């Protein structure tokens, strides 16, 4: 079987790409899939920290591309999940150190060995983004329910269409149902209305995410938290399962309760 390459992109920075890549990868690996995540953010690497693998980096993506090591040597195996690997980004180089065709070659080599390749795209729409999407079979576009993030997601979706990488699937991160209820936050419907693409995940605002990122223990490892559950659901949807949306349910419940008063 050859792997599916999934890239997570957003345009805007800070919307939760890296956290999502870590959690989706963990969730897929927990289901017994062989997963490799690649940090595409050369020069500003983070994925290793979020996954808690920072202290085990010896070789990185650029070392592989430039032939200083074999692919296998740069793949860091996660201790908690033996089927999860990370190829970290180089911290001392920049996005121009690799090219889109390098990424395609690398992923083609990897495809035979794993089931899923998850690529963390850097923010922006320049070289780093182009590198990250070059090999992608599917792209998940990440946004927060705020106007600026949605605007950038819209731009990214347009660029993906132009590069014939569409149709992208949408992940809405950090949704606060209470704020939506008060009319202080864009709702899922507002975002979908504008972006008009398939929705693959809604991740509720959850402060456990920050704690987990700082500790290098992705939430999806146990999946007790709301956000952890949401990431697991994205992984299941990627694998083709039909999973109802968590955040929407809780919103409906809220409406039902209020309706009864």
């Amino acid at each position, binding site marked *: 079987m050859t792997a599916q390459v999934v890239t997570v992109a957003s345009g805007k920075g800070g919307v939760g790409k890296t956290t999502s890549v870590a959690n989706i990868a963990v969730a897929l690996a927990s289901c017994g899939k062989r997963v490799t995540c690649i940090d595409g953010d050369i020069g500003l690497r983070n994925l290793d920290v979020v996954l808690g693998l920072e202290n085990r980096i010896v070789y990185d993506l650029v070392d592989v591309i430039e032939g200083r090591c074999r692919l296998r040597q740069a793949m860091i195996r996660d201790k908690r999940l033996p089927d999860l690997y990370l190829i970290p980004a180089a911290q001392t180089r920049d996005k121009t150190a690799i090219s889109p*065709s390098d990424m395609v070659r690398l992923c083609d080599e990897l495809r035979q060995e794993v089931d899923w390749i998850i690529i963390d795209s850097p923010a922006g729409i320049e070289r780093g983004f182009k590198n990250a999407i070059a090999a992608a079979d599917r792209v998940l576009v990440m946004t927060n329910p705020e106007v600026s993030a949605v*605007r950038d997601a819209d731009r990214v979706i347009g660029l993906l269409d132009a590069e014939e990488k569409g149709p992208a699937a949408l992940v809405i991160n950090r949704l606060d149902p209470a704020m939506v209820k008060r009319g202080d936050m864009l709702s899922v419907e507002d975002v979908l209305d504008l972006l008009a693409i398939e929705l693959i995940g809604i991740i509720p605002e959850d402060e456990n995410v920050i704690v987990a990122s700082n500790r290098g223990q992705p939430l999806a490892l146990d999946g007790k938290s709301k956000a952890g559950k949401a990431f697991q659901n994205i992984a299941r949807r990627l694998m083709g399962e039909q999973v109802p949306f968590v955040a929407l349910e809780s919103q409906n419940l809220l409406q039902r309760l209020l309706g009864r008063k």
Partner: protein
Amino acid sequence: MDETLSLIQIKGIRDGLLITLDGAAWPELATAFVKNVDERSSFFQGARVALNVGANELRVAELSVMRDQLSERGITLWAVLSESPVTETTAQNLGLATRLSKPHPHDLRETAEALPEDAAKWVKGPLRSGGKVLYDGNVVVIGDVNPGAEIVAGGSVIVWGRLRGVVHAGAQGDEKAVVCALEMVPTQLRIAGEIAVSPKKQSKNQPEVACLKDGQLVAEPWHKLTGR
């Protein structure tokens, strides 16, 4: 090599280098050109390049590979000229120019007058943030025009969908130009020389027509205009 070299013509222009690749099939031309670039890398290093590909029909896969190959070698591909409409569309989709310089405003006006009144450019929406449509005649968009998208038309603009981006109708001064949309909530609306911003935050959720009345930009609900 000499044979393939004759297929490549290099000319210095104001905006960098104009390279004409013609007279053979694309794969052959592309290979020859990249080889040529590699052989003379110091000459090409850092160059801004416009490619004239003649009648070759290029798809995104081919053109983006060429762009990436050039960018790996420190060359910026900024324009692709072609006789093939397919190639032109591909280039536009990839955000590349398809003309060497912008037409002079005066020329624009002449072409606008030369265009038949019913000339319209069809745009399949949604037109997303960063998308831009520039056309001398009328523009019809089937789908939404999102915030961050821009349409500049010599004539009128019809949006069969929500208009939330920026539209400039009658860009060469035609005050009779109108803008119609199923939902009119533009970031900014311009007709000829007048500029207006959408006064309402919430859309009225009804089709509207914007036009110039006594030098004022006004938008009216379609049902009022038709009396229904």
